């Protein structure tokens, strides 16, 4: 890590810690931004580095959301009575109970999806290309439909997560969820940066470029694919758990397994930023979120129309993303050796 990078990281970290105090009105938006970046980063492990375009990471996100809330309630009160309606008014979490529940819930929300990813990984990751994409799409929708039929987690009427306890300050709720998501974001970034600097990333790229050849070279591709998916599931589950608490209400198809929104957002953000890069998803998610929050109000009611058009335009005209565009423009910044004469010749050709 050179000096410039270190300064950049320290700047971002300081900004991240100071942000809720500088922009107190935007705490919820900033937390959502953190969650979106986590989702884009984890999607990029599959879609960008491994070449497995998944629509199914939403499964882990939703699973984490339901598990975190269920554990948080179930640790202290009967879950069935809570979800049957009005439970959140009868049973009140004390602050200790709330934070204890949240901590255990988040741990479960991270570990359980990772285990699920490990269990289904061997079956699902054997599929390739568009079959994998459609299969994971089916998985996400199936999870949404099925969880919408299960009584104990609220079925069709939804699940209210425990309300934040009154601990004096009115600002506490926003700050708590912001720092939760920011810490998870930092952890995700560190973990993903760490695995990208090892042989693991090279294996993932080998799988993307030519899986048969990678296998012929003696790499146990399946093992790496499953581990990659488990890492994604771990952080997706955490993000889901926090998002559940932040939104305060879980609905099976509109909040948790929301393939139409979050499921597409994560793909779109990673592609917008540039898939297959470390910073791409971060930039993509930030740009996307700013665009979304800035313009969504102008498109009031027409958001999905705008979203549909945005997907089509980005996919067709901008598939390399922001990082890809920068790379083409300033290749030497990305560590590529550029021959000056060659470049001049190219400019003349144009």
């Amino acid at each position, binding site marked *: 890590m050179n000096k410039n990078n270190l300064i950049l990281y320290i700047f971002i970290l300081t900004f991240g810690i100071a942000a809720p105090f500088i922009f107190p009105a935007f705490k919820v938006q900033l937390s959502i931004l953190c969650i979106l970046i986590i989702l884009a980063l984890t999607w990029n492990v599959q879609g960008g580095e491994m070449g497995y375009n998944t629509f199914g990471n939403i499964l882990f996100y939703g699973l984490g959301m339901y598990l975190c809330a269920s554990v948080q309630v179930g640790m202290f009160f009967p879950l069935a009575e809570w979800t049957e309606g009005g439970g959140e008014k009868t049973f009140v979490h004390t602050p200790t109970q709330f934070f204890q529940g949240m901590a255990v819930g988040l741990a479960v929300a991270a570990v359980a999806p990772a285990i699920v990813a490990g269990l289904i990984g061997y079956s699902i990751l054997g599929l390739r290309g568009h079959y994998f994409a459609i299969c994971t799409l089916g998985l996400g929708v199936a999870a949404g439909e099925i969880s*919408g*039929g299960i009584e104990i987690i609220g079925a069709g009427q939804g699940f209210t997560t425990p309300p934040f306890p009154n601990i004096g300050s009115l600002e506490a709720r926003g700050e708590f969820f912001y720092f939760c998501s920011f810490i998870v974001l930092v952890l995700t970034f560190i973990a993903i940066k760490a695995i990208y600097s090892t042989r693991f990333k090279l294996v993932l790229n080998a799988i993307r470029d030519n899986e048969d050849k990678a296998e012929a070279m003696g790499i146990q591709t399946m093992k790496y694919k499953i581990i990659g998916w488990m890492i994604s599931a771990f952080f997706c589950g955490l993000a889901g758990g926090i998002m559940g608490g932040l939104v305060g209400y879980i609905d099976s198809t509109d909040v948790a397994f929301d393939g139409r929104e979050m499921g597409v957002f994560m793909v779109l953000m990673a592609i917008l930023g540039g898939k297959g890069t470390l910073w791409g998803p971060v930039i993509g998610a930030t740009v996307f979120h700013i665009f979304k929050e800035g313009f969504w109000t102008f498109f009031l009611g027409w958001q999905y129309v705008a979203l549909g058009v945005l997907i089509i335009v980005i996919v*067709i005209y901008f598939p390399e993303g922001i990082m890809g565009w920068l790379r083409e423009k300033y290749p030497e910044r990305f560590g590529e050796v550029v021959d000056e004469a060659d470049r001049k010749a190219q400019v003349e050709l144009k």
Partner: protein
Amino acid sequence: MDFLIFQVPMLTVQATLDGVLLGILFALIAYGMALQWGVMNIINIAQGDLVILGGYIAYFMYLYGIHPAWGVIVSPIIMYFVGVIIYKLVINKVVDRDLFISILATFGISILFMQLMNFAFGADVVLANSGYGTTMLFDNSVTLPNSKIFSAFISIVFAIGLVIYMKKSKLGRAIRATAQNARAAKILGVDTEKVYAATFGINAALCGVAGALISITFTIHPYMGLPYTIRSFMIVIVAGLGNLPGVAMSGMGLGMFEEFADYILGTEFRIGSVFLLLVLILVYRRFKLSKKREYLK
């Protein structure tokens, strides 16, 4: 969860008949998907939304006092042009590219259509009443709406008509040639761009027919598109591209599966079970092929 179906054996007959009639409709949609998948190598996620749009055309005819059965003629004509327009605007830019690009682009179209239909037609579940009445079978223990029989009949007519058209007509030959080898077809003077546009248009027209029939037989709603896409995808991968009897058979099989799942698991798990079945089929085929060290291509 109730097991009424085991206590009343006649429900089995009911479910089977319903399933077969429903499955023929699914097969019609799947036929369109197989056609454009085979010719253009594109998986169209917006397939189901085209179906729903076709359904709304018939529904609006019903609202303005025209019998919705005429939608079977009007809807494909309108949908053909919708399909060609979609092709010109979006699909022709993704034809030769990675399949995932086409999946994502058509996903965008699907979201766009869903929302536009939601604005234009409202978020209510609607149906076009054909007033065809019902047929009672086996001492009134099995009820069969005549509209279902009508829709299955029309689907078969359209499917057979299209098969003959593909065999005999000049455009049909051009489409089949392009599907076999687009480059060779181009060299031999086939305007592949036109063929692609026509293929997508025909696919949309088939969706239009199916949609009109669905609006008569069942109900339509702007957000109901994706299950139809998944169903047709499933039918195509079970049957394989270009295997028409297979498409018909697996369509009926899927229809029956759904009806039985509806009775046994309950209506709330119906769509979920369809999606889960897709996952199971893909996983089954993956394991079967991995024994030969191959994978689904």
